[in-house]
């Protein structure tokens, strides 16, 4: 066991591409990674061999959550995976954590060769109630005319910390579908950055989250339209209860030359308790006129009429609330190929709302 030599006073990350008033405290977020040791991860063996050149290329593109977090990821790495996705069965990767595996520092490379299509699911969860940490980087390289579904599911316990950085590049006519499910971890920091370099490249993001207890969620998206006629959308749906705090910070960046591009972001939060905090910073940055960008954010309690309808059908109030929240998350859950897992997640959402 060796201590990794990283000296940082306070880790911060997920910095907005365009800053705003400092006092609002939305320009960046505090990163809570305490484990500075290099310890092995025993639940899984690495797949394939890390392509160092590719790693550097992506590192030049974006520093994920922050430079320091990337550096820690490099020095403490205890699981390295490299996948070449081809037309085949979906790949499902289970990443359990427990007292025996308190630290998961994984590096993942997902390369989709031209014309190939595929699905990969990364499922990270707690097996017991011990505090665990995760610091993950995921690089996705989607070559010309390829398509990939990347599904990330996170179900760590409330004491735990999850940090995930995804950096992606999408080529000509290629498509990246990302679905993320955030159901756990007391402190979640999520970072997604995509460069749509190709002509007609597409990025579609769907996120479902449920914040409860003292959960703190920071959901950061940075979608860059670089090629012509790129299409992107971000859909974030979730519910907050107890003392949960959620920060949604999404940016659609229209870089000069991305003529004919179309970008949308949509965020909808259901507020279940008066002690929750919901913060949204939906940015649109346009350096190109021949584009269309839209964003919409809304938040509120569950619609009375919907509740009334369900309750008039004989469901209890909480059952009805559970059903409505679950329905908002369905588009994201539908991206999960494994039906058993899908059902499992639905059940958990439902149960947590019932327990309220």
């Amino acid at each position, binding site marked *: 066991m060796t201590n990794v030599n990283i000296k940082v006073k306070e880790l911060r990350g997920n910095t907005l591409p365009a800053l705003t008033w400092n006092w609002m405290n939305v320009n960046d977020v505090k990163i809570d990674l305490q484990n500075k040791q290099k310890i092995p991860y025993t639940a899984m063996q690495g797949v394939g061999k890390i392509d160092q050149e590719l790693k550097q290329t992506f590192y030049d593109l974006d520093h994920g959550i922050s430079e320091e977090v990337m550096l820690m990821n490099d020095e403490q790495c205890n699981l390295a995976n490299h996948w070449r996705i081809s037309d085949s069965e979906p790949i499902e990767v289970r990443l359990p954590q427990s007292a025996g595996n308190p630290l998961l520092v994984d590096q993942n490379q997902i390369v989709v060769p031209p014309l190939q299509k595929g699905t990969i699911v990364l499922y990270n969860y707690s097996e017991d109630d011990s505090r665990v940490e995760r610091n993950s980087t995921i690089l996705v390289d989607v070559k010309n005319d390829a398509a990939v579904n990347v599904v990330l599911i996170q179900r760590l316990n409330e004491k735990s910390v999850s940090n995930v950085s995804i950096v992606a590049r999408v080529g000509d006519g290629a498509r990246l579908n990302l679905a993320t499910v955030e159901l756990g971890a007391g402190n979640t920091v999520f970072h997604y950055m995509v460069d749509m370099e190709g002509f007609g490249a597409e990025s579609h993001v769907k996120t479902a989250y449920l914040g409860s207890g003292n959960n703190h969620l920071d959901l950061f998206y940075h979608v860059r339209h670089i090629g012509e006629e790129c299409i992107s959308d971000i859909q974030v749906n979730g519910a907050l209860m107890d003392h949960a705090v959620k920060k949604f910070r999404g940016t659609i960046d229209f870089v000069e030359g991305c003529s004919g591009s179309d970008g949308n972001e949509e965020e909808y939060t259901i507020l279940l308790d*008066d002690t929750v905090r919901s913060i949204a910073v939906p940015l649109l940055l346009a350096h190109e006129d021949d584009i269309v960008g839209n964003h919409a954010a809304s938040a509120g309690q569950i619609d009375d009429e919907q509740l009334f309808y369900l309750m008039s059908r004989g469901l209890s109030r909480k059952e009805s609330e559970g059903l409505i929240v679950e329905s908002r998350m369905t588009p994201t859950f539908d991206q999960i190929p494994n039906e058993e897992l899908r059902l499992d997640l639905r059940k958990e959402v439902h149960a947590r709302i019932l327990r309220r």
Partner: protein
Amino acid sequence: MSNLISNLTSDQNVKQQDTKRILAKKAAEREVLKENRRKERAEKLKERTYVEEFDRGVYDIKNPNTYEIMLKKGLNEEIVREISSIKNEPDWMLEKRLAALKIYHKLKNPNWGPDLSELNMDEIATYIRPKAQMESNWQEVPDEIRRTFELLGIPEAELDYLSGVGAQYDSEVVYHNMKDYLALQGVVYTDFESAVEQYPEIIQEYFGTCLKPNLHRYSALHYAVWSGGSYVYVPEGVHVDIPLQSYFRMNAPGAGQFEHTLIIVEKGGSLHFIEGCSAPRYNTINLHAGGVELFVKEGAKLRYSTIENWSRNMYNLNSKRAIVEKDGVIEWISGSFGSRVSMLYPASILIGEGARSEFTGITFAGAGQTLDTGAQVVHKAPHTYSTVETKSISKGGGKAIYRSLVQVDEGAYGCKSNTDCQSLMLDAQSRGDTIPTIILKNDDVDFGHEAKIGRIDDQAIFYLMSRGLSEEDAKAMIVRGFAEPVAKELPLEYAVEMNELINLELKGAIG
């Protein structure tokens, strides 16, 4: 065995060649598609011509820079003391100025927003007294200054549509007048220096409480060197039926204007206040860091309209803030057309149940301009309502940035807030950014936010052209229609002025 392997490899080879062939074909197809689509888009966007600078007519008339007193450029304690002694101020005001100066020196330029590094306080004269006394008879205002305001249409407006007018030229107010019947009802409308002298208790009670000097660097600067501005007091239940207007004109190059506006509308009163700003164009940097404090009491209503057309050498770092009590209403109408850099985000603090804030704004950024504008609303009490509707237009490399905050505090239940911001970009060199922040601290809110950014809708142009309009006219009509929500909130003659400003800005941009 070796046969099998060679078969396999040849299979792989065939497969690889297939992939290569398909890819090459796809790439070739894509190149053709790309070219075709580019042509289609180019046709839609049509050739455009640009006019870099244009004659802004009356706004650009320069008077010779004559003055009675002009403090030397720069900022230090000595200068602040000098301003205070010229104004013959009470000690408490000087103390406030010096305290603010200390805050100014402590604070830095913001790390966000437009670049302010070109702004050097050593190059700016903070106080310039024109050769004029404050008059309430228009004919006694010195000819040259009077002519400038007359060309800007100020006294005419007074006769026809306004119940009172104030005119500030550089650092001092040169004219202030109000219709008699309002004075009889107890309405006070005066320049700020006179207010400090005549109503010391009220000013001491309210001054610097809504807009604090420590809010940001330029608010501190404002409190250190403020000069001029207006004070309005509307007593309980009095409705000021026609608008009051203050017009701020900066003539001197390399100067700053720091007027302070304080308006109190007592219980059940109402007022419409109009603020106009302009300056001729110089090659040196000018600074405008005014301060506006508005107090809207129970059930009162205040509409604050601004049409700002500073010249393109102006840094407009103005701060405006309103505190709204129970059932009070604040309505902001804000048009930003001029200046080189603007940072302007009028804030509404809703502290009483049922208070309401409505913000309607338009920003038009042309070549060389960075206009960072928006609004802030803080819901501090239950059942408070706010709407924000903004339009931004950028052309010729101009940057229009919409920045906003909507915050709903703990315990402020039953609040409603709706934001709608739209940006229109007229060419590829321009920039249009939207940077909103939404902070919700309780669950009983009804909140919506929508933003749209992009080019003029082709279908709308097509529709208008099918009705017999030329493409140019169709586009101009769409832009005017885009600005309509702001125009309709202004008194007619100001709406006309705004439309003219838009026409001026659009000249050469479209068609």
